């Protein structure tokens, strides 16, 4: 059996021995070196740009600027960003390109023989700027009279996307409430901090295609965006992903794709055929790509005396930054999560995305879900406290079940298992009982702190997260299988699998191979994968939204069936191509939000035990039970790896990662100031608990699961901290200094 097993990862040997090539390793020694020149202006109008000195700097081959780009605008889900900020408008776009709306907007691409020459030339570029008022955050962007960052959208304000949900009768809901809890929550940025900073190279391949080798999440989408900016047909562009050093949503939008393609293409036109490579430093990476959104959510929830939710009123604002990236989509996810995974009879939910001059918000593991789950679960835990109910019991009384009508007033897809997930998590967390309350700990020194300063607490939270793209997006995933054998053979002796899906480090290619082997009844060694190259693979959709195993599995099942038909038909080789399309979804109704938002969900619950040092504000998470219904664990080891990695990433988000932004500029562009967890910082014990309650339409019953560990960690930690100290934290990260300040201010403990 290939599915359900844990064969050795197909990428393990290369990665362990160091032969695997990541994008920077692919750049040959004779390649030209490209440097992206950032505008370094949070908000300013470019009045002149002079690159003549840069062009004549020794070793410089070319300097590309806005006039070199045929269509000087791009954007994954909304084209609102110039490829280069420039003085002269080019191409078919309404987006004014002479304004820098973000410190890391691109001004030019210098191509040189050496990195040193490229740096010298970059420093020789002369730009003059007319300063414009900097909109440092959503409050400044929404203030009356704030300048419009994107006047071209015709809206007349910087709040550029708003979603609603209007369900039931709010007055009746409040009237039925025995308890009402209300708070304003602030959620922070998070940097992806993947191991591999952005890097790539571009060249013209043997078929004359503009080819980019880079790390991304969706080859075909990268290709489409490059083709759009270069105004070339898609089949003249080729995108290849070598090994990818992490992504987490941070590679969902393009970084170097377009500028590298542009450089190779323009140089080729000038008779220069060497490849062009670029490798970002960590600082360039942190400043130069989007973040998990910061935002604010005001929530007011009511429940009756039994703890049943009677009303949810909630309004959210996300800081989208200077450009949309995927903010409008992230916002949809956040919007849907504002009522939690519960039966909500009466709801008034509003969500806004706001342009500012800060770093763009965008995709990051959970895609808006962690922000709203934090709020929903804090609200639920506060209701439990107000009503004197156990946090598990109140959830038992409210969670969605099969046949439930969701907050957008349509039935949930079959296979709603959150009740089982909550029960399993609660049961696992209650045994063994928590450790004694006075056990000293010391995260920061070799001597233990005063035991009298320690407090322990426990917290619980649960959530759902969609699998696959939502709200009417034309979801699809393609796979191709070629079976080999002689004409008289009963069964094929081997197969080739062609799939574009990105292995960002999560093991997707191993899982694809396992699923193909299972579908074909072949041993896994007989299936040879060919991945992530638009020249040979069909559109897979993105490695995101916890969708890839789920969508690829269904596509592979279809392709295997087609190939089998061809085989039985006598074709040699026997080719099966399949494009899987899941059940359709719908966009939110603008007024009421009524829609069928998603076709599948994953469910998660987490129980956290922690100790807080009330003398210093340090928190140690002693234990987290992370419970997931994965439908079917196609590869249990990889599922555990996703849970452990996701929990540690969530731990950083909640406890230590503090991206500081002042006047719309990042102050912490290094891993020495932006503190991701080290090996000693994560939870002492992570207990992954895997349930396999089939998704009726998942391949082999599988559900997506990769984002789910991020969803509930913040509210579970906050609940445990409240249990320990009696204080609620409506904002995080819970850095020692913030924790201590809040404990001081509340006079506890």
């Amino acid at each position, binding site marked *: 059996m290939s599915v359900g097993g844990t064969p050795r990862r197909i990428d393990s040997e290369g990665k362990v021995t160091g032969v695997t090539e990541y994008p920077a390793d692919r750049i040959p020694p004779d390649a030209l070196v490209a440097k992206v020149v950032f505008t370094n202006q949070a908000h300013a109008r470019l009045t002149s740009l002079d690159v003549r000195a840069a062009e004549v700097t020794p070793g410089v081959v070319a300097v590309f600027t806005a006039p070199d780009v045929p269509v000087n605008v791009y954007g994954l889900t909304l084209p609102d960003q110039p490829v280069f900020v420039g003085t002269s408008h080019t191409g078919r776009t309404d987006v004014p390109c002479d304004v820098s709306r973000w410190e890391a907007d691109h001004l030019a691409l210098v191509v040189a023989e050496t990195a040193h020459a490229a740096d010298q030339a970059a420093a020789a570029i002369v730009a003059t700027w007319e300063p414009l008022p900097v909109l440092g955050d959503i409050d400044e962007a929404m203030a009356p009279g704030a300048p419009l960052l994107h006047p071209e959208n015709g809206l007349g304000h910087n709040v550029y996307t708003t979603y609603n949900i209007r369900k039931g009768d709010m007055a009746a809901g409040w009237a039925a409430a025995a308890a009402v809890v209300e708070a304003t929550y602030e959620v922070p940025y998070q940097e992806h901090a993947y191991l591999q900073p952005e890097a790539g190279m571009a060249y013209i391949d043997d078929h004359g295609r503009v080819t980019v080798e880079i790390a991304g999440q969706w080859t075909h989408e990268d290709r489409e965006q490059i083709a759009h900016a270069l105004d070339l047909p898609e089949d003249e562009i080729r995108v290849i992903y070598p090994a990818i050093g992490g992504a987490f949503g941070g590679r969902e939008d393009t970084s170097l794709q377009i500028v590298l393609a542009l450089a190779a293409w323009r140089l080729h036109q000038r008779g220069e055929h060497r490849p062009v490579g670029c490798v970002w430093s960590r600082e360039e990476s942190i400043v130069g790509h989007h973040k998990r959104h910061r935002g604010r959510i005001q929530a007011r929830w009511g429940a009756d005396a039994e703890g049943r939710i009677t009303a949810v009123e909630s309004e959210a604002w996300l800081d989208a930054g200077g450009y949309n990236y995927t903010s409008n989509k992230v916002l949809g996810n956040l919007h849907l999560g504002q009522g939690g995974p519960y039966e909500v009879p009466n709801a008034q939910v509003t969500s806004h995305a706001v342009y500012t001059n800060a770093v763009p918000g965008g995709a990051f593991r959970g895609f808006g879900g962690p922000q709203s789950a934090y709020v929903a679960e804090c609200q639920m835990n506060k209701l439990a406290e107000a009503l004197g109910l156990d946090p598990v019991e109140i959830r038992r009384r409210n969670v969605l079940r099969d046949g439930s009508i969701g907050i957008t007033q349509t039935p949930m897809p079959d296979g709603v298992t959150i009740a089982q997930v909550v029960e399993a998590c609660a049961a696992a967390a209650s045994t063994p009982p928590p450790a004694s309350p006075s056990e000293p700990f010391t*995260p*920061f*020194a*070799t*001597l233990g*702190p*005063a035991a009298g*300063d320690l407090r322990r607490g426990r917290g619980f939270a649960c959530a759902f997260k969609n699998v696959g793209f939502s709200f009417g997006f034309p979801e699809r995933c393609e796979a191709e299988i070629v079976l080999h054998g002689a004409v008289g053979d009963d069964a094929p002796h081997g197969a080739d699998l062609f799939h574009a899906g990105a292995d960002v480090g999560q093991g997707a290619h191993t899982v694809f191979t396992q699923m193909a082997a299972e579908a074909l009844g072949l041993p896994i060694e007989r299936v040879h994968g060919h991945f992530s190259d638009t020249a040979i693979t069909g559109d897979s959709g993105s490695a995101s939204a916890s969708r890839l195993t789920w969508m690829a599995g269904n596509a592979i099942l279809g392709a295997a069936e087609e190939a089998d038909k061809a085989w039985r038909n006598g074709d040699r080789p026997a080719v099966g191509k399949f494009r899987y399309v899941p059940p359709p979804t719908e966009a939110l109704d603008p007024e009421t939000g009524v829609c069928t938002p998603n076709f599948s969900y994953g469910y998660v619950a987490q129980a956290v035990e922690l100790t807080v040092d009330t*003398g*210093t*504000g*340090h928190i140690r998470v002693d234990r987290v039970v992370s419970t997931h219904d994965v439908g079917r664990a196609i590869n249990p080891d990889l599922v555990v790896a996703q849970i452990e990695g996701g929990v540690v990433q969530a731990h950083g988000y909640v406890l*230590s990662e*503090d991206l*500081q932004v002042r006047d719309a500029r990042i*102050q*912490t562009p290094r891993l*020495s*100031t932006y*503190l991701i*967890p*080290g090996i*000693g*910082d994560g939870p002492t014990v992570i207990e992954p608990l895997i349930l396999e309650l089939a998704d009726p339409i998942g391949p082999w019953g599988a559900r997506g699961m990769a984002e789910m560990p991020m969803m509930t960690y913040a509210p579970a930690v906050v609940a445990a901290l409240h249990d320990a100290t009696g204080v609620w934290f409506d904002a995080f990260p819970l*850095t*020692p*200094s913030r924790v*201590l*300040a809040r404990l*001081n201010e509340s006079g506890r403990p």
Partner: protein
Amino acid sequence: MKYLAPKTVEEATTLLAEHPGATVFAGATDVIPQLKAGRPEPEALVDLKKISQAVSVSDEGGHWSIGAATATAKLTGNKALAAEFPGLVEAAGLIGSDQVQSRATLGGNLCNASPAADSVPAMIANGMRAVIAGPGGTRTVAVEDIPTGPGSTQLQPGEFVVSFELDHAPARTGDAYLRLIPRTEMDIAVVGAGVRITLDDAGNVASATVAIGAVAPTARRVPAAEEALVGNPINDTTLAAVAEAASAACNPIDDKRGTIAYRRQVAGVLARRAVVAAAERAAASTNGASNNGETR
């Protein structure tokens, strides 16, 4: 940039006189990152690790002598030193990671003059002295007098620290160093506190040194905390006075790692905890009977 590696103190002082633009180094765990971050290159880098006095550790001659260019891994690995001065050795063992400690030195930690240098409060608490060589010969200076501000020391051109002197601890003495960083390792101290306590036969404090780091331009003693302790037992009253004095002695900056208010409050908490730890060690110590200078 030249690399020079003198083998004796005299050779080193001569080279430094010949190359006024030279910088000495030991582990280079500060020097190299600083060069990479864009600090101007010196004319020459003078490696102190080939000078035997600078890389040896001994307790002969009535006191400990610790080479200024000795990797701190050699200190954490020295059982006798760790038994007598656990706080000092723990401070050295907090610098970076195992990898960093295979290079990092007390001389570099002190002379880099970061206010947050971990070993410095522990060295001050233990009354350590620096033996400085230079064009005018050799002089000995208390460690606490060496740093004069962030990145600056009282060392004169051509001078460098050869070694540190550390007297054996009297009976019923214990030391401790505590530091606070947001993470568990590989981070810069937000607050550090080094304490040494000697108890009298009645269990009262006979002498005390309290030094705090990362909360002022240089590591500094807290005389008010020391006065609150001497002659008194360790109890809630004296500990509260220590905490208050340590907080009051702070003159911290607001930075990415912690606010002024936070550093001030936690300086008090750490000083208090370090006093408790040092006093417990003092009460349990067998120093003096087998371990003090005279009886050896």
